């Protein structure tokens, strides 16, 4: 239940952004509000039950302030959520100013991940806009002495057509601020036909700043008196400094001193990794000083980790019975009967995020309080970890969120921000920590390495009579508890327990794997390796039985139905199964549509060319993708065309959604072509773009066509769901073009050349 309260007369918001007398609304969930005379970062017990998720202010001059509470890393959520508010408010977008929120639990969840910004905040944003609109109408009606029901709004103004009167929102703001806030039941949301912006979209609010170099990322944050820091981390996770010598480092011009950072206490979570920081007058001097450090390390227990041997261990585990996470019928009984059996192992290595902006944060610890400027996806997690590291109350941690130079899940983990805070406290002055690209690649929270074993028994028509799938991967919760070895429901659900096929005998298993590096969320997470295994295995079965891959996958998806997860732990991405049921008919529809759009079966494929298809639901969005490839005699792979169809329910910002799916194809191209992190004696082998290449312009799809299904279903995710089906479809296309089956990613060892 969300409540909205008029907080205009209370001390509110930072920086004098909202003028006195302005109408200010806070939408929040749960409980009663008791703001007292607190600034928003002064969170306390009263606030703990409040989860405001939007602030909206209207100035007497007509300016509408909308607070973006979620982080902007390129998905346009900083624009799209305020756009929903503006639509319900019937505001003129040109008069809207967006203000980025600091980390504060009153906004509700601020962890901008999981492709759920729109899904989780769409209703709240509408209510925020509708509430203000209601009050403005009431204020106008009172002033004119006419019934409110006779008034309506028309782009930033209230009008009474019968008497031809009109008042701008700015002129009404002061009077409206004196009125009681309507109850949710009193609100009248606009009908779809009256939507101004929702479904039509808008370019980024920051577009001009982005192309003129004026946008402020974490890398660009500055305060007076700040120094720069670069940190030499233990090369192996859990390692410690034995001894170190900084004499040569201190000789570098501009280097001031070195500072030791304690190693983390198990489990790592979001703590700093520890090591030696070089403090300098500029970034470059700090980098140079680091190269002159002489450190002797105690590498700890993860020194035994070698990724080649680890791959074999995962595979061996997957070849034996594991923990059953879902079972239908009796797959073993069918396998025991013999017949045509098809088996395959699939493998996806550790993947690094490699956002273009490396980790960076600026911290100022002063008078017992910490102020941070950081490109973070999760400012409340910053508050948590900085509070713990510095031993100060959470409300004394103020986290300003800059623009993010990419995130992809890495910047949900604020270890680098905590590092800056710790250093600022030690130095007694503002410190900006800048990670090098090498730090970024070597000290990531990697997408899990995963091995999948697939087995099917094929019936007369080629359809599987039994299906077994086992996945083994070090789970993300291992960063919070090092003894966690099994996949958790939140990640097993990602394209694994929810295999959408109509199968009478199905068993899904998961095996144990101990983590030796930090594992974390990366754009679409476990869906990458799960969809790769299932959708490529499907393609293999189609070819094994002489069926067309499109017809075959449609056959397996079967007739439209709602998947029954009785007895299965299926979190459904945190969404209600009633509101967001798993509807195979929608997956079927996007698959049929992408076949049509891509000209499946109609295009001629010469030597070295081919197409692949895959269909997958993730983050509540149904996607099907067809990838076309050309492989020349040198084994070089081009991607001339991608067609992708998505059903994400209501799409607020189609333009931004298309961009996300274009980008997802490029992200997926990197995964398939070259994405691979390996380790030797616990230390990561890769360091920069020469050994962790990501797709460049000629390696990316030349043209990605994105088609959005027109739907009135509730909104689902768009940032991540494009990646998993692309990875599988691209792999299947390579087989179609070359006859070489992609079972291990990346394709560098496939021998195409």
């Amino acid at each position, binding site marked *: 239940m969300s409540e909205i309260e008029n907080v205009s007369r209370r001390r509110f918001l930072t920086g004098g952004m909202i003028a006195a007398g302005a109408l200010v609304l806070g939408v929040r969930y749960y409980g009663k509000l008791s703001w007292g005379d607190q600034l928003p970062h002064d969170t306390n017990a009263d606030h703990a039950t409040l989860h405001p998720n939007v602030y909206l202010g209207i100035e007497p001059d007509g300016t509408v302030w909308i607070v973006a509470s979620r982080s902007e890393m390129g998905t346009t959520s900083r624009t799209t959520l305020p756009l929903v508010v503006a639509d319900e408010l019937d505001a003129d977008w040109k008069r809207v100013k967006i203000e980025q929120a600091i980390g504060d639990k009153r906004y509700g969840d601020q962890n901008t991940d999981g492709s759920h910004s729109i899904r989780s905040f769409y209703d709240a944003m509408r209510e925020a806009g509708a509430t203000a609109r209601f009050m403005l109408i009431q204020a106008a009606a009172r002033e004119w002495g006419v019934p409110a029901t006779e008034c309506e709004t028309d782009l930033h103004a209230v009008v009474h057509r019968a008497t031809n009167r009109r008042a701008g929102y700015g002129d009404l703001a002061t009077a409206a601020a004196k009125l009681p806030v309507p109850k949710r039941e009193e609100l009248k949301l606009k009908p779809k036909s009256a939507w101004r912006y929702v479904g039509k979209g808008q370019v980024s609010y920051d577009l001009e700043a982005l192309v003129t170099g004026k946008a402020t990322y974490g890398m660009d944050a500055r305060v007076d008196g700040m120094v720069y820091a670069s940190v030499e981390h233990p090369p192996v996770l859990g390692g410690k400094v034995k001894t170190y010598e900084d004499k040569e480092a201190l000789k570098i011009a501009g280097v001031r001193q070195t500072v030791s950072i304690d190693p983390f206490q198990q489990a790592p979570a979001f703590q700093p990794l520890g090591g030696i920081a070089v403090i300098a007058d500029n970034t470059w001097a700090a980098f140079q000083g680091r190269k002159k450090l002489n450190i002797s390390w105690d590498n700890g227990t993860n020194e035994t980790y070698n990724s080649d041997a680890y791959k074999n261990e995962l595979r061996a585990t997957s070849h034996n019975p594991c923990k059953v996470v879902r079972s239908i019928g009796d797959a073993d009984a069918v396998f025991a009967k013999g017949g045509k059996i098809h088996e395959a192992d699939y493998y996806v290595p550790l993947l690094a995020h490699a956002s*273009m902006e490396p980790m960076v944060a600026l911290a100022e610890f002063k008078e017992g309080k910490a102020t941070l400027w950081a490109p973070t996806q999760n400012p409340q997690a910053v508050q948590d970890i900085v509070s713990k590291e510095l031993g100060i109350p959470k409300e004394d941690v103020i986290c300003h969120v800059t623009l993010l130079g990419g995130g992809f899940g890495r910047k949900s983990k604020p270890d680098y921000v905590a590092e800056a805070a710790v250093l600022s406290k030690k130095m007694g002055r503002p410190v900006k920590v800048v990670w090098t690209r090498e730090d970024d690649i070597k000290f990531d929270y990697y997408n899990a390495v995963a091995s999948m074993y697939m087995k099917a028994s094929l019936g007369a028509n080629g359809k599987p009579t039994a299906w077994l799938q086992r996945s083994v991967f070090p789970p993300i919760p291992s960063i919070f508890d090092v003894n966690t070895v099994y996949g958790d429901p939140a990640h097993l659900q990602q394209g694994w327990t929810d295999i959408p096929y109509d199968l009478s005998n199905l068993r899904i298993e998961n095996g144990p794997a101990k983590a030796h590096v930090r594992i974390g969320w990366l754009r679409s997470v476990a869906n990458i390796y799960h969809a790769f295994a299932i959708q490529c295995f499907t393609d293999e079965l189609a070819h094994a039985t002489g069926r067309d891959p499109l017809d075959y996958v449609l056959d397996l998806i079967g007739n439209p139905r709602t998947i029954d997860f009785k007895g299965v732990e299926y979190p459904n991405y945190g969404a209600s199964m009633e509101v967001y049921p798993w509807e195979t008919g929608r997956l079927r529809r996007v698959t049929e549509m992408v076949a049509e759009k891509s000209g499946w079966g109609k295009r001629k494929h010469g030597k070295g060319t081919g197409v692949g298809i895959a269909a997958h639901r993730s983050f509540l969005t149904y996607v099907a993708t067809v990838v076309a490839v050309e492989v020349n005699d040198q084994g070089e792979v081009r991607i001339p065309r991608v067609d992708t169809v998505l059903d994400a329910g209501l799409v607020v910002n189609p333009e931004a959604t298309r961009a996300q799916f274009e980008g997802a194809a490029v992200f997926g191209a990197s995964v398939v072509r070259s994405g691979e992190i390996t380790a030797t004696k616990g230390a990561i082998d890769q360091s920069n773009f020469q050994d962790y290449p990501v797709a460049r312009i000629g390696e990316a799809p030349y043209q990605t066509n994105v088609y959005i299904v027109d739907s009135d279903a509730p909104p689902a995710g768009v940032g991540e769901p494009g990646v998993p089906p692309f990875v599988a479809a691209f792999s299947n296309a390579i087989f179609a073009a070359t006859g070489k089956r992609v079972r291990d990613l990346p394709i560098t060892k496939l021998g195409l050349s």
Partner: protein
Amino acid sequence: MIQLKVNGIEQSFNGEPEMPLLWYLRDVLGLTGSKFGCGVGLCGACTVHVNGQATRSCVTPMRDAAGKEVTTIEGLDKNGLHPVQRAWMQINVPQCGYCQVGQIMQAAALLNSKKKPADHEIDEAMSGNICRCGTYQRIRAAIKAAAGEMT
């Protein structure tokens, strides 16, 4: 003492001559439009023009910038309306935007030397600039749009 011109303004630098131009621009002059992405000239986020040539400022030591004219995104057009910037907005290229300044500087240099680049020429010229968000097809389209405007 190293003398150079940055966005038309005479500057002198008496610091470490090995310091890369990028860090001079960012940390000393406070021109933060040019970005740090890799530090070794592999990603192009730091691209500026040195005497009109697209240059990776992260691997250009200050001693090599002596006597040169450096143009950064801040100086590409005083109103931020260079045809390439306009095309970038028209095609709605950026996602996170971090690499786009380098992409724009690279594209502007390309169009200075080649009025109507073909696809393969665009791909060749832009191959040193990484965009992790994956905006490449829009970059290609925007370069073509800007090329149309510049002739």
